[in-house]
């Protein structure tokens, strides 16, 4: 086998080996099945959850909240960040507010948001949006401020009108930094969302809700299904964001 193929085989084999050892240990009674069910038990639980449609419902609910919250935080965040980056007066006004609000752990204001937006999706979407908003504002404004002055000189020298300056210089100049912010935001969003679904379970849906109710009823294998599914959601959404970045920021990858 070639070196590359050997490496590939090993990357696939090593997690499989861990699963096999785990299964064997379970069968031999080396781990307590009540706390750590075997891979086969988890897979069976996952299968029945999927077939009944329950799992799909939880995934859909979580994804809906994640995307809505992400968009509602990222879009205004970019707009505010760009204006801040371009205008020192706006920066002087907004900077102290961002500095004061950014460090608040957003899950801490969930009760407040529940008062404002109710116990349904509203407060969950809002808490995700809040976490994304400040990270995006900060990364976007820094991205705009760090655009080298020479590009503005070149743009001016070639008679760039304002609306083109935005699309041809400001936005592409800030995009790498904006995406760095979005990547961090995505990770934080998942954490906050699962947390919100733990606490605020009245809507009876979401992966966080699945994990939490499984804990309360001590159906440990369902809990593991939830943990694995949320991990997969994290990996897949991160991958998708990467792909979008590759399309929009091709000069960083080619």
């Amino acid at each position, binding site marked *: 086998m070639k070196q590359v193929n050997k490496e590939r085989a090993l990357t696939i084999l090593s997690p499989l080996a861990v699963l096999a050892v785990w299964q064997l240990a379970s069968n031999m009674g080396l781990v307590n099945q009540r706390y750590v069910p075997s891979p086969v038990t988890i897979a069976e639980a996952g299968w029945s959850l999927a077939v009944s449609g329950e799992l799909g419902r939880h995934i859909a609910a979580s994804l809906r909240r994640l995307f809505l919250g992400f968009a509602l935080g990222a879009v205004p965040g970019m707009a505010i960040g760009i204006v801040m980056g371009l205008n020192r007066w706006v920066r002087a006004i907004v900077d102290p507010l961002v500095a004061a609000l950014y460090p608040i752990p957003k899950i801490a204001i969930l009760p407040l948001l529940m008062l404002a937006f109710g116990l349904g999706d509203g407060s969950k979407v809002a808490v995700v949006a809040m976490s994304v908003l400040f990270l995006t504002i900060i990364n976007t404004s820094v991205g705009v401020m760090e655009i*080298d002055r*020479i*590009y503005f*000189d*070149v743009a*001016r*020298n*070639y*008679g*760039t*009108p304002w609306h*083109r300056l935005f699309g*041809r*210089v400001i936005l*592409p*100049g800030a*995009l790498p930094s904006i995406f760095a912010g979005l990547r961090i935001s995505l990770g934080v969003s998942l954490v906050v969302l699962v947390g919100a679904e733990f606490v605020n379970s009245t809507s009876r849906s979401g992966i966080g809700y699945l994990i939490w109710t499984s804990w309360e009823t001590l159906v440990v294998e369902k809990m593991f299904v939830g943990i694995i599914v949320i991990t997969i959601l994290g990996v897949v959404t991160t991958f998708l964001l990467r792909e979008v970045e590759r399309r929009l*920021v*091709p*000069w960083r990858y*080619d």
Partner: protein
Amino acid sequence: MNAPKIKIDRLAKVFGEDERRTTALQDFTLSVGEGEFVCVVGPSGCGKTTMLRIVAGLEKSSSGSLAIAPGADKGRPQNAMVFQEQGLFPWMTVIDNVAYGLEMRGIGKRERQERAEPFLEMIGLTRFRNHYPQQLSGGMRQRVSIARAFVADPEILLMDEPFAALDAQNKLIMQDELLRIWEGTHKTVLFITHAVDEAIALGDRIVVMTAQPGRIKAIVPVDQFPRPRKAVELRGDPRFGALQLEIWRMLEDEVRTQRLQAKS
């Protein structure tokens, strides 16, 4: 010489206020004819870049006047500048960078590319049209910068030490390329450099500047070398060395003064 294309009259630039006041440029008067290639040499910090930025409209003068004679074609931009380095947009491909001036004038994509293509060929980068600047070497990037300025088809071309960051071999090659492209258009050029040999190889006249505050010390005509010139071969000419020495002597005093100023 025809009516001057660029007429600069007692241009001055003062930075800062009160004790921090520094005069970067003083009493700078120069007329450049249509199709003339004028080089400006001076010690670093003598205000030559400031002068060029004022001509480019990127900075305001403190006093004095500047006039660039309009041409017949109203759609043409007044000037295009080739910057020192890193002046290309990293997020645009080579062809988009080269056609940027046309894009800003609202010219459609197809026509832009058609007009940019011959210049890409001239600089030998047709193969790299869809590459991004950071995939190119420093010399290739400066070629693209120059092509961008020529494609914009401005009334006058301004160049701010475009080859300063290149190694000695690339510098010579680029001088030859610039001369070759320029021969095809005979644009009016104002070229800033600190390299005396570069100024002689390229220019019809050389403006020698004093150390801060920048004033004109002398204007030296370079009429002993007929065009079209070859930047490399010129250097074998004994008159080249003589002229280089003459201009260097003028500059030497200025560099000394500047070092004394820096110490005090």
